């Protein structure tokens, strides 16, 4: 789950990270009042969970409360990089002396937490890492020992601070680390982290991504996510509720597989034979007929999908359950478009028997099935 800037900043502030003064506004009036309260000029920032807002017009300066009203009126209800803007963050405009980068994330290779720090900020860390790799400090935190003082000192020194400002950077890092742990974050990032002309150290922007598997431990966030799934489409959110993984793509061949790798391989096969997948739909391990039924129904009802390719290799998944789910969906929706199935694995004979009874085309090899579905979709 990606958090909005204002959510991330509110969490970080609760862990002692100093912040610019700011107010959330959902209407132009609120934005004007916020600007008046904070004292102009202010910065108006569209709350969307996508990087690169600035270049896309999602961050604007407003010199007066009236200008804040106009800027907010312009942003609210509009889109930034394809995402609706429902709220803006109105913040005091600060004079920035220097921009830095600081983040904490999970590192796959070391199987630990890692702090990335750079005295260069305001651009993507990938860009910094690519162009000035020697400016990026990587500090691994042992997950059992936790963040230690010597590591904090190392980061503070790397960013070029000591004394009072060093202590401010320390507060930022410790607050970020606590938020990272207590919110089960995949990422906590302040970019840029700014040294202001008045000596304050504050994040100008903040991002947090929460581990979806840990959302149950954070009921407030879970609720916020259910009310507003952010950059996830309605279709994707609905699929998640039913219990399968679904990602929309821009082609016309519906793809259903069991297991992420097999489903991706199925997409890749469709593409290799000249077709364009309309989606990624993984019914997951051990799916029952209900999930399959919902999955097939989703694609049957999707107008953009011209043909469906179901590719199942049963391990946990019992292929007879899959066949029964297909049967149920077809009974309910009818068969508005061709379906091609390839079924292998647990209870294969029974599964094939059921599908044969429905008159569905079946193949032994995924390649043959893929070729066939591409041909069917092209007709």
């Amino acid at each position, binding site marked *: 789950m990606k958090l909005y800037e204002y959510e991330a900043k509110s969490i970080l502030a609760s862990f002692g990270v100093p912040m610019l003064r700011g107010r959330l506004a959902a209407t132009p009036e609120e934005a004007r009042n916020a600007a008046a309260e904070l004292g102009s000029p202010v910065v108006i920032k569209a709350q969307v969970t996508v990087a690169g807002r600035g270049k896309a017009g999602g961050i604007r300066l407003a010199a007066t409360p009236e200008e804040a009203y106009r800027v907010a009126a312009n942003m609210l209800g509009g889109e930034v990089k394809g995402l609706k803007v429902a709220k803006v963050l109105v913040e005091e405009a600060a004079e920035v002396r220097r921009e830095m980068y600081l983040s904490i994330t999970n590192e796959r290779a070391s199987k630990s937490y890692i702090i990335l720090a750079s005295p260069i900020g305001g651009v993507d860390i990938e860009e910094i890492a690519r162009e000035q790799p020697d400016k990026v400090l990587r500090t691994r935190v042992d997950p059992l020992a936790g963040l230690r003082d010597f590591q904090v000192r190392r980061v503070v020194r790397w960013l070029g601070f000591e004394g009072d400002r060093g202590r401010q950077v320390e507060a930022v890092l410790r607050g970020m680390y606590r938020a990272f742990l207590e919110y089960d974050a995949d990422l906590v990032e302040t970019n840029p982290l700014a040294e202001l002309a008045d000596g304050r150290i504050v994040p100008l922007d903040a991002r947090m991504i929460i581990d979806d598997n840990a959302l149950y431990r954070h009921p407030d966030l879970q609720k916020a996510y259910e009310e507003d799934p952010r950059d996830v489409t309605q279709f994707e959110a609905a699929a998640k509720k039913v219990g399968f993984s679904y990602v929309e793509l821009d082609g016309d061949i519906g793809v259903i597989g069991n297991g992420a790798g097999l489903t991706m391989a199925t997409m890749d096969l469709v*593409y290799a034979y000249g077709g364009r997948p309309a989606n990624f739909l993984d019914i997951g391990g051990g799916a029952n007929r209900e999930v399959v039924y919902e999955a097939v129904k989703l694609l049957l009802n999707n107008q953009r999908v011209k043909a469906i390719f179901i590719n199942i290799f049963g391990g946990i998944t019992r292929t007879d359950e899959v066949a029964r789910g297909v049967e149920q969906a077809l009974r309910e929706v009818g068969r508005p478009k061709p379906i091609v199935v390839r079924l292998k694995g647990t209870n294969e004979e029974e599964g094939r028997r059921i599908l044969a009874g429905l008159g569905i085309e079946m193949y032994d090899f995924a*390649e043959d099935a893929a070729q066939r579905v591409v041909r069917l979709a092209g007709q």
Partner: protein
Amino acid sequence: MTVLVGGDTRAIVQGITGREGTFHTGRMLEYGTRIVAGVTPGRGGAEVHGIPVYDSVEEALSSHPDANASVVFVPARFAPDAVYEAVDAGIRLVVVITEHIPVHETIRFVRYARYRGATVIGPNCPGIIAPGPRVKLGIMPGHVYAPGPVGVVSRSGTLSYEIAYHMTSRGIGQSVVIGIGGDPVPGLDLLEAVELLEGDADTRAIVIIGEIGGDAEERVAAAIAEGRVKKPVVAYIAGRTAPPGKRMGHAGAIISMGTGDAASKVKAFERVGVPVASTPSEVVKLLEVVL
């Protein structure tokens, strides 16, 4: 002992009384796996497929001191605790089938296991199977495997079944097949698994089934470049058509922050002379060349 498992493997099943635990205990026993005990807190004294169930790993081990591996089917909220319990009791190999465990939990219990000298396979994985000694710790369909000289390491479950099926159909058996799981941080990672196969006398060639997300494949390629892996390797990478920024089913299958796309992995392998199959079944053809 081939790699991690062998004729002396004696397993316990944690969460044996749950639906998946019971079902797959049956399949593992059918395959030939020596399961000596099950564990479900509060269900001590029960039996599942004739296997005695205990309230704790400690009790299971006091009655079955030869147990040296565990398969975990415990639900995500309780699975981390099951791993600590197994490691604490002295189990050296813990296979975690459970999906949806928070990554922070995994990072911690994987570290704890490593510090205590235990290996974790998974979470969110199909497990490990050795067709020669007929040991299956996991949920893969046993009938698609056959004994042979090829070690397989996979980030994807079903895709590994698929490829093993193709191999077996063409008469190429497997020394061991390890499904390391689809989470961002696997206990045993791709490189560690490949290194185990490199050191295994029963393995002549290695199949790597990768997918988008992270840089595990690139790290294997780097190890090959350094000469740390000398056996022939064949690879397949799933997700060439996956868009960036989207999790493709597996928590770990996401192209993010500029890394993890399939093209980079294919290129990394090809650069070190590892042929990369463009379809799952092509893996077998490439294998026939190197064997």
